[in-house]
């Protein structure tokens, strides 16, 4: 797969910045509370690189698991992606309970809380994807959200090691809580090529020279 230029990565960041901004607005409207999403930092990593990264940020010794909310998307313009939203389980639980005005001392996330988390993830992912679809002028069909709690090591076990992962790191601030999470777009190689081509067209970037690829 070819490496992406700095210009392309900037364009990508801008695209996510726009889409996540809309997601935050939608989310704020639902929870009737000011929510800020920080400007995302964008990287493209392999599955194993990301797992290592997550493990170093989230040591398994801490016992905290990661909560992943994912939705499959299929774009008419020719790429498929599995969009994942990741939060530390403890932090996401705190956000949900705060939102529901609940101070129950239960360690595990309950069924209804998991449902609420699915909806929150759904809003952020849908909002993000819809603005991308708007930008690209395409239609994107999405599945229902699915919530799972896993350790960093096993988080991406269901993905192929040849998949490429577009990682957008976002910070979510809500009242006194700071929650740092990731939005991941997992794509196969043809999908990411197609995705980047559309980003390139969107920002009118010069066509990439194939000789740059490794």
């Amino acid at each position, binding site marked *: 797969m070819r490496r992406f230029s700095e210009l392309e990565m900037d364009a990508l960041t801008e695209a996510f910045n726009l889409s996540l901004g809309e997601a935050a607005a939608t989310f704020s409207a*639902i929870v009737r509370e000011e929510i800020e999403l920080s400007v995302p930092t964008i990287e493209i990593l392999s599955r194993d690189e990301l797992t290592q990264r997550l493990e170093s940020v989230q040591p398994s010794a801490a016992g905290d698991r990661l909560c992943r909310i994912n939705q499959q998307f299929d774009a008419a313009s020719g790429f498929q992606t599995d969009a994942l939203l990741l939060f530390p389980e403890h932090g996401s639980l705190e956000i949900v309970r705060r*939102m*529901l005005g609940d101070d129950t001392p239960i360690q595990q996330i*309950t069924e*209804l809380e998991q449902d609420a988390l699915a909806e929150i993830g*759904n809003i952020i992912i849908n909002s993000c994807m819809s603005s991308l*679809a708007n930008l690209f002028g395409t239609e*994107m069909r999405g*599945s229902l*959200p699915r919530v799972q709690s896993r350790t960093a090591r096993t988080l991406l076990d269901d993905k192929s090691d040849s998949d490429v992962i577009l990682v957008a790191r976002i910070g979510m601030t809500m009242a006194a809580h700071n929650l740092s999470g990731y939005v991941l777009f997992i794509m196969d190689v043809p999908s990411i090529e197609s995705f980047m081509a559309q980003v390139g067209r969107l920002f009118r970037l010069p066509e990439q020279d194939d000789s740059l690829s490794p």
Partner: protein
Amino acid sequence: MDCCQLLPDCVDLGLILVGQDGRIRVWNRWIEERAGLSAEQAVGLTLAEAFGPHVDPRVALVVREALDFGWSARLSHALHPMPLPLFPPGGGRAERMKQSIDVTSLPVGGANQCLVQVRDVTETVRREALLKQQARQLRADLHRLTRAQAELQRSEMRFRELARQAPAGLFEADAQACCTFLNERCEQLLGQELVAVAGTPWINLLPFSEQTRVRKSWCQAVESATRFSEEFRFTRPDGSYLWMRAEAGPLRDESGRIGGFIGTMLDVTELHERATRNEFRANHDGLTSLLNRDRFERHLRAAISGAREVSDRLALLFIDLDDFKGINDNHGHNAGDTVLKAVAGRVRRVLRSEDLVARYGGDEFAVLISGAGDAQNLDAIIGKINQAVAMPINLGHCHVRVACSVGLAVFPDHGTDPATLLNHADKAMYCAKRTRCADSGSSAEPV
């Protein structure tokens, strides 16, 4: 009717299929029962027409998005508790059923249709509310327990520290008198650590002569569940001995039975010795350590009544120093005291240990001899006394000699009661003194 048409009515969740035109295509039995509207009535209507105005606007929005953009969405119960006016089947319409809704976009023939799945989460909500209430209750209980435990720890620490610093020995023992706790002071007193004595009753540590009495007292305290209090002599493993006072109160177990005793052990050696000293002082002359007059007379009375029973003979001797005043006048009172002490020692030494010697007055001594022999025997004793007293006495700067006059009274020959005997001995002594003075003229003289 084929299988696919029957399917929506067999599932335990609400299914509504909305076509691209926004009109209802499928309205399953589950929804019929909860919306109060039959499929016949609902099919062909829009959601707004079927449900009326009381629908959460977000439902309409996500249905629209599913139809227009192909997105799927979840409306959780937590954020949208009762988005559709659905009511429990067969129940009243007082409160909406608690719901969770999934909206999925279905591509059918180039256009999007929208499947709305409604789940009844009433039972889940009830269960989770219960769970949370229990969790809160548990947290409160745990909090209380933690506080109680902390308080217990504090009080335990307080007790431990008090026990450590206490000047008294503290002990706890079971009903068999085996120690289960000793503070440091108690270990010091016993000269042994708890581990060394834990297996055996502490009473076994006492000298054999004390054990029977103390054990009896302990058993009585256990049986009657009363205080135990005893004083006893205790010999430590290093050979040193103490007088100790142990006091303990019963400890009851949950069933009210006596499980053991808790109490104190005090070193009362000094008290004991002081009492012994005081008793000695009350009965003895401070200068010569001989019995005093009062004590002597009590002994005399007792000896007379004893001798009367066994027909024994008692001899009472009165000894008076000749011209003791002269020694005081010539050599000072210290010299007088030295002479008195020397005489006391000499008289004591010439008699048997069971004979009593007392300082009766200033320079008067009294002797009581039980099992007194005949006159000859008594004369021999008087002779020994005279001889012993007459030996020179070292005053440091010089020696003096002092003579004495001895008066004798014998029970029952000269009297059968103390007063008569004392009187007789007194007179005999004066008689002897007169005889001696007439013989020698002067008695106390420097050597």
